[in-house]
């Protein structure tokens, strides 16, 4: 029950602060995230790239059925590190939030607004009875006409902030050091994808192929693409790269 490193008697109740001012359950949730497969995001001048390892415990698993990079609405995509099932729930909630916004305003939410809402959902699970925090950190890439492209992270506590480039999960420390060296404000989307693949490769255990990674990109639209044609919807800004596209990038 009481061990020195585990937070002692304060580590079991989510809704009780420890004397040092921590909610130890959230620390444990962050540990669950750090044990998960690495994910990263890089912001470029004309877009954003999200990338993640798709490691499976057995060769027999059909990884094509697993979705780690998920679109939420045409202009926003998520990737995570941590517990897969928690991610699926949050993706479902985020999609509903985006649709509810669309129903009122006739347009999809700006990235920051969706991030705030999803962070609110995650925070609720840190201040309620009978629930535990979500065991994931999210990297969110989105584009809106007000802010342009933006990359955000949300932690199990519900705190969120914006990044130029970041990594979460198992290899995050090395990956972030690698990114710090390689990042500059003039990176193009192509450069960013290339850098993302190099960063993932650094900590990759096993073979890195189009089946063991997933990539999503935000492409910033041109003014011509923003003109609304009657009867047509604006093209989406977020999409997942197909396995063929990933293979092409890997062979570069």
């Amino acid at each position, binding site marked *: 029950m009481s061990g020195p490193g585990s937070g002692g008697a304060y580590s079991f109740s989510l809704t009780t602060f420890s004397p040092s001012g921590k909610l130890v359950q959230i620390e444990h949730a962050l540990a669950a995230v750090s044990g998960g497969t690495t994910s990263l995001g890089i912001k470029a001048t004309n877009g954003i790239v999200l990338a993640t390892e798709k490691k499976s415990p057995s060769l027999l698993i059909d990884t094509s059925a697993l979705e780690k990079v998920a679109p939420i609405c045409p202009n926003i995509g998520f990737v995570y590190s941590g517990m897969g099932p928690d991610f699926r729930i949050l993706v479902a909630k985020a999609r509903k939030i985006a649709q509810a916004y669309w*129903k*009122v*305003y*006739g*347009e999809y939410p*700006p990235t*920051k*607004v969706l991030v*705030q809402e999803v962070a609110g959902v995650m925070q609720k699970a840190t201040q309620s009875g009978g629930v535990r925090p979500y065991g994931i950190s999210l990297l969110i890439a989105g584009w809106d*006409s*007000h802010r342009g492209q933006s990359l955000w992270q949300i932690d199990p506590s519900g705190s969120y902030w914006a990044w130029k480039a970041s990594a979460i999960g198992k290899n995050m420390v090395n990956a972030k050091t690698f990114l710090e060296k390689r990042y500059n404000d003039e990176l193009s989307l192509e450069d960013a994808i290339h850098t993302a693949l190099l960063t993932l490769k650094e900590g990759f255990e096993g073979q890195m192929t189009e089946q063991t990674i997933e990539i999503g990109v935000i492409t910033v*639209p041109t*003014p011509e693409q*923003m003109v609304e044609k009657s009867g047509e919807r604006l093209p989406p800004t977020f999409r997942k790269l197909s396995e063929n596209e990933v293979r092409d990038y890997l062979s570069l």
Partner: protein
Amino acid sequence: MELNGGSVVAMIGKDCVAIASDLRLGNQAVGVASNFDKVFPVNDKLYYGLPGLATDVYTLKEHLRFRVNMYRMKEEREITPKTFTHLVSSTLYEKRFGPFFIEPVVAGLPTPTDLDPHPKPFISTMDTIGCITTPKDFAVAGTAADKLYGVAEGLWEPDLEPEDLFETVSQTLLNAVDRDALSGWGAVVHIITHDKVITRTLRARMD
């Protein structure tokens, strides 16, 4: 809708919009107030008019003020005319089976952005349950709507400068409400351009 009376008209000009309303509030045939303004600002580039049942004018105005304030604080930006129109539309549809007796008219100038450096002036209108129309010329609503359609169709032409648009919208409003028993008793016109809004009260027939 025929209890209090009142009408609103909006028109598109060259890099400007106009929105105007009468000032009458009545109880059927009895005129009660001649200072009942029906056009309100969201900000200095976006105005909206609410002709119809007077109690709903107040309620909707306050509700929209609440929604827009929350939007402004959360999104840290001003709401655009198109988004505001959708907000009004969904607010009305929420009351689909017990609606507000208002037919809103929205008029505004979207702010130029990098992606859209020369946005077109915007007007829209909707029915009591939020069906949006986005006309390219003029939008009318209220007890004198039929008359407003007629005069606007005759007087409007594209690309009117702010001063000419003022004359056109004023004549449209005045001549239409003069043929309607439940509208009139004064009129106010707002001309919205990129640098300012000019609001003028018209000398109207007070009968």
